């Protein structure tokens, strides 16, 4: 296993609009287990940011605690990051966004960090429609504490030690839909073709974009009786749609017959072009999305793809009426009302 990351790269490596290669979006060498799904999620994020030509330093990555939350160290090394406390990343991301609305915020969390200790904060960050991309690397198990079950693990499935999981699973995309998320997707860390366009669309979406990524744990949850193993997920994944991400600057050339595809236009002018899967439904219909997730679950399938998107709804700053200028750039000239304003205030207390 390597312990040093090579800085060498091919001189003809592809460059994006900023003249950066994908290596400019990488982070430190991962210390996660070899084959961990989370590293694939990180790699997909690197590719998405590279392809979108995001300025790395204009992205802020935040996380809680756990294997998933360690992952931000291993991508976007030229972005500020904040590894906060367990289950509380959403509040820190909220404050960060309130302070500076001009950055892109990427939250990296896990099933324990979001569906257990952080359930309250997750629910409320969805409600306030914080403009961020919130990724849950979902493996149904507590990795960093060595193999305890997570709240997203399927009832009736078994742990590596053979214990049956007794409690109902929490479906995070359903929750996000019920609480008002304006972009909800599910994907699989092993399906980069699906994950990268979804991440790109999420990053361009203005509002709360949630992606639940099934990201198997090779060490503690990859056994035959698990429903979060690579094999099980591969066999049970059902794509509701295939999403292509079309940047705003690109001419749309491909043509599909009516009914086969649907375009959703995002705030920045880019498009998500969706090709329906076999059980396709309208991903602008929130009720249909919740219904489809549940129908597939009953059949033992895991519905993936872009589950729901509404680019017309407003985000937290719209609700708050915050000024466009990042608050952290305002100085005393703007912020301090000065001594003269105190005369009237003093008089109101006499």
């Amino acid at each position: 296993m390597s312990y040093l990351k090579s800085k060498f790269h091919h001189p003809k490596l592809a460059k994006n609009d900023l003249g950066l290669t994908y290596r400019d979006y990488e982070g430190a060498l991962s210390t996660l287990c070899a084959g961990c799904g989370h590293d694939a999620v990180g790699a997909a994020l690197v590719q998405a940011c590279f392809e979108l030509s995001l300025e790395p330093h204009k992205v802020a990555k935040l996380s809680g605690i756990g294997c998933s939350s360690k992952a931000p160290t291993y991508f976007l090394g030229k972005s500020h990051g904040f590894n906060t406390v367990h289950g509380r990343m959403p509040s820190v991301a909220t404050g960060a966004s309130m302070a500076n609305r001009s950055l892109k915020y990427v939250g990296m969390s896990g099933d324990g960090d979001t569906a257990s200790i952080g359930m309250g904060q997750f629910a409320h960050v969805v409600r306030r429609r914080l403009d961020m991309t919130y990724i849950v690397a979902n493996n149904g198990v507590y990795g960093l504490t060595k193999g305890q079950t997570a709240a997203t693990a399927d009832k009736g499935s078994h742990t590596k030690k053979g214990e049956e999981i007794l409690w109902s699973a929490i479906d995070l995309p359903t929750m996000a839909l019920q609480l008002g998320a304006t972009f909800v997707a599910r994907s699989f860390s092993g399906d980069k073709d699906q994950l990268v366009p979804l991440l790109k669309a999420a990053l361009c979406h203005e509002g709360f974009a949630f992606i639940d990524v099934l990201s198997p744990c090779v060490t503690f949850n990859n056994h035959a009786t698990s429903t979060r193993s690579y094999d099980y997920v591969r066999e049970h994944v059902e794509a509701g749609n295939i999403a292509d991400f079309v940047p705003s600057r690109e001419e749309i050339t491909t043509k599909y017959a009516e009914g086969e595809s649907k375009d959703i236009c995002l705030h920045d002018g880019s498009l998500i072009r969706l090709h329906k899967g076999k059980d396709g439904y309208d991903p602008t219909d929130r009720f249909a999305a919740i219904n489809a997730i549940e129908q597939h679950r009953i059949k033992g399938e895991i519905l993936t793809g872009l589950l729901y998107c509404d680019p017309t709804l407003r985000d937290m700053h719209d609700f708050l009426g915050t000024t466009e200028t990042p608050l952290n750039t305002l100085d005393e000239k703007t912020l301090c009302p000065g001594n003269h304003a105190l005369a009237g205030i003093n008089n109101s207390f006499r």
Partner: protein
Amino acid sequence: MKTINSVNEFVIRFANTNGTGSASANNMFAKAIFRMGVPVSPRNVFPSNIQGMPTWYDVRVSEKGYLGRRAGGADIVVAMNAQSMVDDVQSVEAGGYFLYDSTKEIDPQLMRKDITFLGMPISAICLREYNDPRQRQLFKNVIYVGALAALLDMDFDVLKGLIADQFKGKEKLISPNVHALELGYQYAKTNFNCPLSIRVQKSDKVGNRILIDGNTAAGLGAVYGGATVAGWYPITPSTSVVENYEKYCNRLRIDPASGKKNFAVMQAEDELAAIGIAIGGGWNGARSFTATSGPGISLMTEFLGLAYFAEIPVVLIDVQRAGPSTGMPTRTQQSDILACAYASHGDTKQVLIFPSTPTECFHMTADAFDYAERIQTPIMVMTDLDLGMNDHMSDELSWDDSRTYDRGKVLNAQQLEEVEEFGRYLDVDGDGICYRTYPGTHPEKGIYFTRGTSRNEYAAYTERGEDYVRNMERLNKKFRTAAEILPQPEMHSQNKGSKIGVVYFGTTNAAMDETFDLLRAQGQNVDGMRLKAFPFAKAVEDFIEQHDQVFVVEQNRDAQMRTLLMNELDIDPAKLIKVCNYDGLPITADFISTTILDHIAVAPASKVARG
């Protein structure tokens, strides 16, 4: 029967039922006396309830300027609540007065021979004068204020002026209110011997001071201090801090061009999220704060450890109330000191500052943002329910317009170009405080990963013992630097050479002038020192060193400040004598002076060896 004879030196208590609109009438009474130039200190003693429970409003009127709570009962009680009538009769000082609603006859068993009963058929008057049931209730309060104007010889025009101010914009309400005042005034004039032996006389002891509560002042301090991000969760008695911040921001912080807000307030789902929001804002370079009380401090403790260790500037206003647990949520205490000073697991030390007056709430809250960014750590402004929720006569608010915010050690893009190397936790200046950057500053330089795990000078994760210890030692050095930046203690020297010192802080200050006078009357000239900050300044150590006996006055059971002094300054416990009042009511000069005198009588200072 002996009567109390007093001009401008008495306590009046209003006994009401909460939810009946008495607060604004009682406030009007206090303000009228204040406008007559006589110092007042009103205190609301209220239940954790919205409607139907007994509530009291004590107004101490003191020409001498004694603004602490007075021990004992009241000289005049206005009894409007049958539920608390038995206790209310008992709470009148001998020779005092008991004004009550005589519409229903008072239980003869309640009568006392040593006080004067003033029966006034307030409900009957209202029934006669008003048709609307709500008005019948509300105007009862205004009627007794009118009666008091006659009984205490108050300036009736001042009251009329207050009504005009209160209903500015709703002029229709002025004349019915003035009418109610007159009903009470005329009844008293006709039926009682006015004025009483206790009365008010115009004076000039108020000057340009104002009557304001600490939470409003702290909220304004956050506006003036440049706070732009607030996360909060409602909890008595801190709620009105952020409410006032938002109210004044909506007035003073709207961008004139766009009409948009130069601030952002988020009511969070709980206190954990409230402090998380403030920390996120602070990390990202905005002046950020939250306000809470004891139970909120307990919940915020994990995050406070992160902010201490990851070195995030954030301001927390703790309006303390009586604990533990839910305790007495509407009573005052100074009992979060240790919980805040050492908030969070592991070796943590937090910075505390202690305002004593609303004016200090204003200035110290504004200053707290400078301290937070300079020291890169949480700053906790330790007020309490008495300071936060009651009006106090306080110096008028002022602001030095030449002042600029101290944003601390932050490198911008150009500075990053110029520095040879950047390490987030490199102690370049040797004061323990390192240079930081805001996210998004520079494409290549000054980028780092913030974490609650141990890290080296370059913000890289480490589990090497020596790296960890080096960082912890630097944090200690930073804490020592903080002691020099923070406000110095205020010395109250009676006479040089006194062997006895008294240490106090926060709202206890209100009782100290009176305490010193009471002690002096007993031949004890003691030195006082008001603490303003933790970590303690060198001057605190010196003061304790210079006195043989040091009384530490505080409003909690366990003498938490004494413990902090002992622990942080290695002081012999025998030298520090605790003076603790923790019944939930503000401490009194009587209690402090009696406790000190009793102790001196038993163990004179000369017998205590120098520590």
